[in-house]
């Protein structure tokens, strides 16, 4: 780890050297290791260490961005000079107002010493546990066990001075037999709370039940979505709907609906960088502090995410959801939460389903149309048919084509338990969800 003092000195060197009217320094430090296994063997095992600096230099209303990972004094000065040089070369952006003013912020708790110090042998032993469990049933185990430490710091000539260090440990596994497969995963800031034995047991049990798959005809079904599948839908809602740039460009399902009931009243979705049940992050990539931001409140569309650029154009304030520069994707929430419900067990949820599909996770989901958030993707690693309140059989993997807005308009039940899923840049905490209508348009067959 570089440490707060080293990073501060580095940022101050850059700010002192910069000739820009406004200068921002984003530092990201990484010390990450990942143990990967397939066919009951550790087949890839990697580690990386490094840091990177990105400088935004503002001259009037012209912005240049340069980044690099040569972090000695000469190296960072060169990055700053490069950013200023290219800022000079472009026309002004009339919509640019300013880099964010400094704001009071609170530190977040996401650093765990045990995770930071986890060794290759420790991860290998965790993998060995998973493999043993799979081998007992004659299955093959696949997956990964990663531990990483990250540092994020944002400093600016306006006075922003923020620093955060966090750790993430994650295990995911797929158990496979000749007939089927089962998936389980867990993620936490603290490696000691990850239980390879329990994770393996879930994947192995699912694999054991995923046999003699029937072929289900296309059509509309009730679905029981496990947290990995729910999180996937939420991540698309975040990137393509809660994203303030999508809203500005009129391609969000939130357009024209703020203040209106959009989804079932059982659905509440918000972002909170300080909630310790997730992977806390106290500020965004412009150093703007994160606060609890509610996107959907009991089905009603409330607000969208902003960074300083979209906020300026919308005449409002940043909500603290800026991504790393240069960001042409827009502001995206990365600490998502969905409200849980009353269903105390999966058995209770299954009993309520007349004819439906129980989905462990989705795969290769892609956007078909943004305004209805119509997505397509496949199920995988444990898909089952429920009939008259009982699990009837495993089924071959199905392709879905479904508007998420429509689907979340008919929520029958939410589980009490919540599970954390890693997302592109953060993590999403969600319940299992029983939906009344979900359209499957095909199945895997050879």
């Amino acid at each position, binding site marked *: 780890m570089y440490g707060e003092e080293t990073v501060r000195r580095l940022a101050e060197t850059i700010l002192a050297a910069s000739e820009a009217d406004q200068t921002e320094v984003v530092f990201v430090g*990484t010390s990450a290791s990942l143990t990967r296994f*397939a*066919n009951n*063997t*550790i*087949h*890839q*095992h*990697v580690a*990386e260490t*490094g840091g*990177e600096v*990105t400088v935004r230099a503002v001259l009037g209303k*012209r*912005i240049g*961005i*340069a980044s*690099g990972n*040569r972090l000695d004094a000469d190296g960072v000065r060169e990055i700053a000079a490069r*950013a200023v040089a*290219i800022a000079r070369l*472009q026309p002004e952006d009339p919509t640019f107002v300013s880099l964010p003013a400094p704001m009071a912020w609170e530190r977040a708790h996401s650093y765990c010493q045990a995770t930071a110090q986890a060794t*290759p*042998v420790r991860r*290998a032993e965790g993998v*060995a546990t998973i*493999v043993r469990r799979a081998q007992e049933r004659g299955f*093959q185990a*696949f*997956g*990964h066990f990663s531990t*990483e430490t*990250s540092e994020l710091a944002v400093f600016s000539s306006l006075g922003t001075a923020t620093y955060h260090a966090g750790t*993430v440990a994650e295990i*995911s*596994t*797929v158990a496979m037999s000749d007939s089927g497969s089962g998936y389980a995963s867990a993620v936490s800031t603290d490696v000691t709370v990850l239980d390879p034995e329990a994770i393996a047991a879930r994947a192995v049990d699912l694999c054991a039940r995923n046999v003699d798959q029937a072929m289900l005809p296309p059509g509309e079904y009730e679905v029981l979505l496990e947290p990995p599948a729910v999180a996937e839908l939420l991540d698309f809602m975040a990137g393509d709907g809660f994203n303030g740039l999508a809203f500005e*460009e009129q*391609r969000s399902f939130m357009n024209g609906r703020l203040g209106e009931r959009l989804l079932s009243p059982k659905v509440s979705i918000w972002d909170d960088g300080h909630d310790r049940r997730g*992977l806390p992050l106290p500020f965004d990539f412009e150093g703007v502090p994160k606060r609890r931001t509610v996107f959907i409140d009991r089905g009603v569309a409330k607000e969208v995410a902003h960074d300083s650029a979209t906020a300026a154009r919308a005449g409002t304030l940043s909500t603290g959801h800026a991504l*790393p*520069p*240069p960001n*042409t994707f827009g502001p995206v929430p990365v600490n998502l939460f969905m409200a849980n419900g009353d269903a105390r067990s999966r058995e209770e949820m299954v009993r309520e389903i007349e004819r439906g599909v129980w989905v462990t996770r989705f*795969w*290769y989901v*892609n*956007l*078909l*149309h943004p305004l209805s958030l119509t997505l*397509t993707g*496949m199920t*995988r690693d444990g898909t089952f048919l429920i009939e008259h309140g009982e699990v009837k059989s495993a089924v071959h993997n199905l*392709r879905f*084509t479904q508007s998420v807005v429509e689907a979340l308009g008919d929520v029958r039940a939410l589980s009490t338990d919540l599970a954390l899923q890693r997302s592109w*840049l953060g993590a999403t905490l969600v319940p299992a969800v029983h939906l009344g209508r979900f359209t499957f*348009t*095909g199945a*895997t*067959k050879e």
Partner: protein
Amino acid sequence: MGGHILPFWPCWRPDRGRRSTTLDTTRVCDNPRVMATPLAKDIIERALNVAALKGAAYADVRVVERRTETVVVKNGRVEALSLTHHAGLGVRVLLDGSWGFASNADLSVVAAEEAAAQAVAIARASALVKTRNVELAPAPVVRDVYRTPIRQDPFAVPLERKIELLLAADAGMRRVQGIEVAQSSIDLYRELKTFGSSEGSFIEQELVETGCGIEATAVREGEVQRRSYPNSVGRHTATAGWELVEEFDLPGNAERVASEAVELLSAPPCPSGVRTVILDATQVALQVHESCGHAVELDRVLGAEASFAGTSFLTPERLGRYRYGSPVVNITADATIPGGLGTFGYDDEGVPAQRTPLVREGIFVGYLTSRDTAAELRDRLRALGNPAGIDLDRLASNGTARADGWNRIPLIRMTNINLEPGPWALADLIADTDDGLYMETNKSWSIDDRRLSFQFGTEWCREIKGGKLGRVYKNATYAGNTPQFWAGCDAVCREWRIWGTPNCGKGQPMQVAHVGHGAAAARFRDVQVGLMR
């Protein structure tokens, strides 16, 4: 969070690319003006030394320096103007039959030696969980230099000129009423890498890529439609210089692209049913990528990606025997074609770029391989009784192992995976089609984890009736299963080029590969279309 977020997204001369053609002999680099700095050589030597002293059976070291330049113009303003420069070293070792890898952004011999020691410790930990020892198929020892052949250094073109060009394209798109968002971009990439192995290989490469593109988004109440040029995902990319940007003339195509986006707003939705479909070359390229390119990655086939990207239905007993498509379908992996985005001199195991048939007259005949997967395939085929009678002793890597930067291990990645051209002119093929749909420019893509069940969407679709292009449809989608789909391919056109896919994701931690697909338009019968309600 952290380094996984920010993608790691050196000295150039207008030479023709140089590439060694010898495969079986050691050849000393005959270009006196080598690119590798003394530091890179030192780093490699010292890291290999530490690995050897600690008992590694094999080791390789890469020193990689990468520069990028990104210019994005959106709605009349410069949305992003960014230059990046990253470098680092990575050491891979094989010890006790297991792999270890460690990497560091600190380009110093001290960091190199530490990385080597760390890689060894990691390999020892890996050996705690194994069911077989990794074996490497033999590879030639090579000492050589390769440079992407380009005409005009794209990094040397003044930034002002690039901004001016994109602003002109932007203005062209926004002249059309109904355009909400106009986006234009240029992306440049230069990678300087030095590879050294414990077997004596030492290879320096300089790869250059240029990409450009425009996207027009039209919005009207309740509807959003987009048109892109020259390809989707914002751009077309190739191992080429500035000449690529001039060839594609973004300003000259801007108004047409924007007009088509607006036209889509009031177009009826693509009808549902089972139809004959002609896909344009860019969509064929992506179809090949998803349903063939990934399916023949041997590491996937052997299970290396099963928990993440998935496996493949092209299992080893099918090699040389399985009907993948109709007899007009011929697919080849070729990393040697100038300009292809998947073109290079040597892969990141030091194996020369080469050409491998994957599908011949519809029969599946080849995989993309690396040194360890080639050895494993040999054992698997032997255990199966070698049903296709392949010469197992000659099974070797065909040079497709590439790493996305200094901090990643080489994985099998597509090179240029090409559908070989056919005899048809596109105009004649349309004239030959009585009733069908013509689909152009990818919009969405999805396929299952075995590469069988897929669904694609395209931006643009036109009815074909009586051999003529007719009305425009929006939200076109088509779906199928890979072997049935390719069995229905009855014609391939001859207007062929290599299209770039610069965003192919694979691996944990994630790696993004730049790959190419040579393709021309092609016709497919009995395709399910119109999947969106």
